[in-house]
């Protein structure tokens, strides 16, 4: 299979945001409310499908003679889902995938070195990983932490999406690792509550691509 070239101009550096790590997990069905930042195309006719938030409760927009005046970051959509995804790295300034390669080097009697890479154990740390409103993964990890249900930390699927390979038409190159572990390392901090996490990729990997860069992407394995 031909190697796909980077979708960058000659010598253009890839911005950090083009490398994405996304966590996926399955849980009991939950109602997920998503805040809408831009006006949906069906707002004028389907405004009663949207919700407003007061405190921690959500209320449907009541029907009236016409749709209320649209206001950004005010209305929510509701979706009942059991599979969840979240992009990692909100409010994290610096994070790299460390491959932690195990290697051995031997030198023959002529002084020539032979280096073997025996295995890699990829890992990525996110520090800070702040407790943020609306973070489903943060709430999931906090629930696991409270119950000390450590085995549940190893039931995540992780995607590494390299958005500097591919495009919005043919999709972006991605790797899907199943049965990965996400570990919380500490809880606390100074001004804001921080729960730094480490994610451990399983290397049980399927290469493929994702059709778009949003939570509802479809992963298609390479043939």
């Amino acid at each position, binding site marked *: 299979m031909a190697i796909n070239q980077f979708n960058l101009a000659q010598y253009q550096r890839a*911005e*950090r945001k083009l490398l*994405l790590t996304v966590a996926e997990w399955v849980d009991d069905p939950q109602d997920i409310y998503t805040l809408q930042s831009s006006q949906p195309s069906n707002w004028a006719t389907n405004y009663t499908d949207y919700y407003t938030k007061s405190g921690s409760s959500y209320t449907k927009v009541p029907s009236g003679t016409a749709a209320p005046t649209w206001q950004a970051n005010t209305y929510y959509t509701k979706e009942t889902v059991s599979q969840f995804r979240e992009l990692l790295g909100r409010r994290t300034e610096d994070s790299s995938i460390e491959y932690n390669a195990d290697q051995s080097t031997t030198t023959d009697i002529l002084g020539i070195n032979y280096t073997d890479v025996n295995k890699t154990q990829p890992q990525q740390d996110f520090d800070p990983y702040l407790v943020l409103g609306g973070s489903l993964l943060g709430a999931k990890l906090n629930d696991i932490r409270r119950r000390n249900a450590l085995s549940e930390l190893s039931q995540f699927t992780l995607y590494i999406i390299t958005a500097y390979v591919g495009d919005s038409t043919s999709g972006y190159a991605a790797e899907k690792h199943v049965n990965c572990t996400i570990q919380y390392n500490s809880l606390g901090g100074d001004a804001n509550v921080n729960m730094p996490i480490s994610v451990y990729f399983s290397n049980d990997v399927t290469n493929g691509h994702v059709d778009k860069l949003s939570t509802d992407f479809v992963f298609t394995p390479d043939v």
Partner: protein
Amino acid sequence: MATVDLNKSILDYIYECPVVAENPMYFCVAEEQNNNNQLVPMNEQYNDAVEFVDGTVERTYRAEILMYKSVAYNPIVTEEVGGKKIPSDVYLNENMEDMTDGQTLIDWIKEQNDNRHFPNFGEWCIIESVKPTSNRLSFNGINVELEPPLAQYSVGLEIKYLDTSKQLWN
């Protein structure tokens, strides 16, 4: 992408404060007259921006609100009450009252922040905090060439917000 004039948003916002709304407000340049107020935005250094791995950027909007007040040269006369000297109610001068106006604005900003009532920076910005840069009003000096002489006070304003316009992930 619809953009929002941040300066206008700030003006709309601080005009909700009663002690600001009852007096003329100027932007950048003001006529120095008693009770005039002036909003002066400060520049944002590139170094102030914090970039995150998801493409969002934390930015800071800083501004100063200048307040012009006529000054009084009345002394704070003390009177004896029960053998102790205390400031007289009669001669509590307007300088102290002017300071109270500014302090009211500072307290109002803090209260809005506590209630998470923020200016509207548009759909791509998430405001995190709106705070005065100090707990007390600053007295910057007096322009004695004016008649009456005017004192200038200032309140610093700092708004932290997350600019999400460059993130890839939706």
